[in-house]
């Protein structure tokens, strides 16, 4: 694939035709709606709409599906910030600070920063996609199972090391998350594990149910216990971010764009991983780390920036090698194939019109989404004004919809309820929620890459230290762990711990 200004300009000319622009707008709208509604993620939305797009020519159809994908990433932050329902794992770090900000009456600025950060990171990573795709895709291909394992291990170490006073509890939450996700069948051998003879557990525990339970239902239970009148005790103060908010957030937007984009290049590295890494990296460099988890606007900026940058980064391996980096892009790949297009190096040679029109439409789509989302900030933040006795039961209803619609199993809804109670107890007893969520999300990939690495090395764990990239991640992971232990036992750790909780 060679970059050429003429291709890009031609792409813009195509994307800006009224028809294609209309489909980008429609896709962005549907995507935002899909993101806001719990229970229907971008993957299922694209899958549902895929057959309907067959009436369209390939360019507007692919433009619309791509717009649904990144539109959903914009919308996904809304419920996380406003009512603490992270519909997917990548929204969890957003919820951790965004919801606290909303409770302080600053839901508007949190939503605004989320939209601006999504726009900045989305656009920056699109520049990366446009100019550096071939080079970067080669780097991504150098990632084998040992590198993936080391990366996941580093992500988990980061989250545990930031549990502050609750380092031991963070470790327990991580181990529990990993163990819960191991219930079911072994990914390689198909052996039943920890199912206690229960057929329902054979299919495993779905992490979306775990997230919905821990955050949404757990939070509702806390509010029911306190008989709160409104979900936020404070009145909504501001609708849009202040200059101060932007000052705190711009660095986070840039850093998370870089982290999100580069990690997004790795096939299989989902936004769930990159948002946690970007969030934790931001906490590490922040001058006010004590605010993280209590309403740090830069935390929202980092999480949302990484989320969108990862999405754009994921198009590099998809376009260059035909490798989808997640389920939503896998469905999009299906869409390409439906039109007889095979993503890969030949796609750029054989269908430059389509590829560059889609890339150009993504620039326009980002602008459309910013224009769509900023005026809606006030509307979403107004949900705070609904009395809790009405909002609380509705959150339960949406949680049930969200948990059920992943696999259409009542078992998943029960899992959400059980984890709701667990989330309530974890809040009370001082166990951090984030390590458990990340562990639950990463288990399968972590385990699969570990097993594949062991096969590659004939059982020797040295493989994680003899391959340069893997070794770098492993060393970083151990540094994080040592740093966390040092924090725990040093005076500074106690200082940080005073403010640290989920």
């Amino acid at each position, binding site marked *: 694939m060679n970059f050429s200004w003429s291709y890009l300009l031609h792409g813009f000319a195509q994307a800006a035709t009224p028809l294609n622009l209309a489909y980008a707008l429609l896709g962005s709208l549907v995507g935002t709606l899909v993101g806001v509604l719990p229970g229907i993620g971008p993957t299922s939305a694209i899958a*549902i709409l895929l057959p309907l797009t067959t009436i369209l020519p390939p360019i507007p159809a692919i433009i619309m599906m791509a717009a649904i994908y990144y539109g959903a990433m914009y919308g996904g932050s809304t419920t996380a910030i406003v009512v603490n329902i992270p519909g997917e794992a990548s929204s969890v770090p957003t919820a951790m600070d965004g919801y606290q900000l909303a409770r302080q009456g600053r839901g508007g600025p949190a939503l605004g920063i989320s939209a601006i950060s999504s726009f900045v990171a989305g656009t920056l990573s699109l520049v990366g996609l446009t100019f550096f795709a071939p080079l970067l895709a080669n780097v991504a291909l150098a990632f084998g199972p040992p590198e993936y394992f080391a990366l996941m291990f580093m992500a988990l170490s980061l989250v545990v090391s930031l549990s502050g006073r609750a380092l031991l509890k963070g470790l327990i939450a991580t181990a529990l998350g*990993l163990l819960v996700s191991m219930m079911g069948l072994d990914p390689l051998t198909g052996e039943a*594990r*920890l199912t206690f003879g229960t057929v329902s557990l054979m299919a495993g525990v779905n992490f979306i149910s775990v997230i919905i339970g821990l955050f949404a239902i757990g939070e509702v239970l806390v509010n*029911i*216990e306190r008989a709160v009148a409104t979900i936020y005790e404070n009145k909504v103060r501001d609708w849009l971010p202040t200059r101060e908010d932007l000052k705190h957030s711009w660095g986070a937007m840039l850093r998370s764009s870089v982290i999100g984009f580069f990690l997004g290049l790795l096939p299989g590295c989902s936004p769930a991983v990159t948002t946690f890494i970007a969030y934790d990296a931001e906490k590490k460099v922040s001058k006010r780390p004590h605010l993280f988890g209590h309403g740090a606007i830069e935390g929202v900026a980092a999480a949302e920036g990484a989320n969108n940058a990862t999405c754009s980064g994921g198009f590099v391996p998809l376009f260059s090698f035909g490798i989808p980096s997640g389920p939503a892009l896998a469905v999009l790949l299906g869409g390409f194939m439906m039109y007889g297009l095979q993503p890969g190096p030949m796609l750029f040679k054989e269908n430059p019109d389509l590829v560059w029109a889609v890339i150009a439409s993504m620039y326009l789509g980002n602008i459309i989404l910013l224009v769509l989302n900023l005026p809606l900030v006030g509307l979403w933040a107004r949900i705070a004004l609904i009395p809790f006795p009405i909002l*609380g*039961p509705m959150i339960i*209803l949406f949680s049930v919809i969200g948990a059920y619609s992943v696999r259409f199993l009542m078992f998943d809804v029960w899992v959400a309820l059980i984890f709701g109670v667990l989330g309530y107890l974890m809040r009370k007893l001082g166990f951090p929620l984030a390590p458990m969520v990340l562990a639950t999300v990463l288990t399968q990939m972590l385990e699969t890459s570990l097993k594949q690495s062991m*096969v590659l090395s004939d059982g020797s764990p040295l493989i994680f230290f003899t391959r340069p990239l893997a070794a770098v991640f492993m060393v970083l992971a151990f540094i994080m762990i040592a740093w966390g232990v040092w924090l725990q036992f040093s005076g500074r750790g106690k200082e940080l711990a005073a403010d640290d909780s989920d």
Partner: protein
Amino acid sequence: MRTQRMADMTSGAFLAALGVLSLVASYNIAGVTGEQLHPRTLPVFLSWVITLAGVALIFGGWRNQDESQTIDWPDKAGFKRLLMAMACMILYLLLIEPLGFATSSFLMLAFLIWYLSHYHPVIVVLLSLVTAVIIYFLFIQFLGLTFPVGPLGW
């Protein structure tokens, strides 16, 4: 479990017991010979982590003599509200399949909104009905999600 100290010791004991249970279950995982990583290896490792961390939590709680750190448990009325809400949720989940998603959602919303707010029953019923109808048309009719519909087709 009013103090953090007691809470740590109690949760540590619970986790240690859970770890032991998980260890027993993990050692029962069958496997194929000749694998580089047995299916039971990671569950066994994690079970040990939970068991030992649970013991460490008991020990940490026992060493922590600070009785002033308390846990913000609910009062009697708070516990009652929690239990009622939990019972309502459990009943709701039990009714989804036999009654249908929209009907059971209407009942859950009506009861819980009334119980938490004590609004006038007419307002509660109207609010729940409108929500249930919107949810039905949006998720079942428009988005085509296959929720249980029950005998009424709702």
